[in-house]
């Protein structure tokens, strides 16, 4: 690891807690290896801060492999930084120029309140999932492979929707803080598969209602979410969600009384 090293000026959003007003603080990142990830660069800055007796910059992180969805903040107005299909943990310093000034901010959305510095509360996503992002039908024992037929195209599409890691970059990038891409990906990966059919209508209805209730904005089709998404979740999911929601509303059945055999 004897590659090139660069120096950076960071304008980092520091906020002591949810109620603190917060503001930008200038910090120097010196002698940063180009092989370091953005989070490793921040680790080094934090070590220096701790040595000086200052508070380290708080940021979310976990796997550092780009698969868990824990990390994420905004670098120069771009969620997860300038590289496409990349989380900040997989963003390497070789993508930045020596002497660059980087503005680092937390994801901004009313539904994602700042906890501290670059950490935001994304539990709104959990509540959207718990409103319908699951399959509750009992399926019994594991069936033989290929007993339930799924067309290849559907399986591929469902898988690509299912790659959403719920990092929240879509909301962060959207000028309306819309959670349409996230919610639609979670609806899509189930609606495309046979197992997801039972709760299809209820799922669309409930998840859209939960999304609205959390105070996310609406989709204006700017495509900012798709551009920011580290997993390349596509806008097609949103079209699918809208259709699912409309069909569910238009074909809603009246509820029958409880009861039945046994």
């Amino acid at each position, binding site marked *: 690891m004897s590659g090139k090293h660069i120096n950076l000026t960071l*304008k980092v959003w520091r906020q002591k807690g949810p109620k603190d007003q917060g503001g*930008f603080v200038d910090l120097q990142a010196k002698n940063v290896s180009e092989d370091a990830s953005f989070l490793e660069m921040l680790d080094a800055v934090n070590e220096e801060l701790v040595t000086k007796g200052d508070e380290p910059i708080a940021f979310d992180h976990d796997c550092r492999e780009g698969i868990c969805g824990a990390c994420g903040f*905004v670098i*120069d*107005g*771009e*969620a997860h930084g*300038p*590289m*496409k299909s990349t989380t900040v943990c997989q963003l390497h310093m070789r993508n930045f120029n020596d002497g660059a000034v980087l*503005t680092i*901010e937390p994801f*901004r*959305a*009313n*539904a994602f309140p700042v906890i501290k510095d670059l950490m935001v509360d994304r539990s709104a996503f959990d509540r959207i999932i718990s409103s319908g992002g699951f399959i509750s039908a009992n399926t019994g024992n594991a069936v033989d492979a290929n007993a339930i037929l799924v067309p290849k195209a559907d399986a591929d599409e469902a898988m690509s929707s299912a790659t959403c890691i719920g990092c929240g970059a879509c909301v962060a*990038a*959207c*000028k*309306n*803080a*819309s959670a*349409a891409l996230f919610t639609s990906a979670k609806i899509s990966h189930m609606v495309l598969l046979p197992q997801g059919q039972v709760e299809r209508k209820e799922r669309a*209805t409930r998840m*859209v*209602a939960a*999304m*609205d209730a959390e*105070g*996310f*904005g*609406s*989709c*204006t*089709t*700017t*495509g*900012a979410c798709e*551009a*920011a998404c580290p997993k390349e979740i596509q*806008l*097609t999911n*949103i*079209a*699918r*969600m*809208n*259709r*699912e*929601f*409309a069909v569910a*509303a*238009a074909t809603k059945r009246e509820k029958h009384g409880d009861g039945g055999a046994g």
Partner: protein
Amino acid sequence: MSGFLGSTVGKKYLMGISGLVWAGFVLAHMAGNLLIFVSHDAYNAYGHALTSGNIIYVAEAVLILALITHVYTAVSLTAANKSAKPTKYAVAASGKKKVTLASRTMAIQGSLILVFVILHLITFKYGTHYETTVNGVVMRDLAKLMEEVFQSVGYVAWYVVALLLLGFHLSHGVGSSFQSLGLMEGTYRNLWKKLSYAYAFVVALGFIAQPLYLFMFAH
């Protein structure tokens, strides 16, 4: 249904459908107006035919309803969107993750187009009433009024700007409507987008040609 119309997705359906109604109208309006390039009589006769039957009231009612729907959903969604994102970023995205200007500024474009539509109605629909006779039928001479209005550089410039804005609005709006309606999926996804750009280009160009033509070549 109240749950549907109260939701962000339902409102986008209303916005998309009402937008497409107006998108259809502007294409027809533009195409009809091209008769000014044929002759003043042809233009006036077309206008007369459009306004003499009762169908005009039905068309106007549909357009007004669509306009109210479009403006209502726009205002309500924009207000909700603003409160969903109260803090803007200190630096705007400028690299690979930035988005088109047209998609970011729909609300302001829409507001300006609304102002234009109102002024446009005052200038023409409720403007000076000249009369002419075409094939023995007395009718309004709108071509004369049009020719008169577009002798002023200011008017022509304002029309060109407003119509470019309309083109801009359509370039994002038409495609986005199909997306909102849940149709932008699969193989034809990008085709819708291209059609949207082509539609906007044709409508804006067709409209803009008229004041420019009258300014440069009439009289």
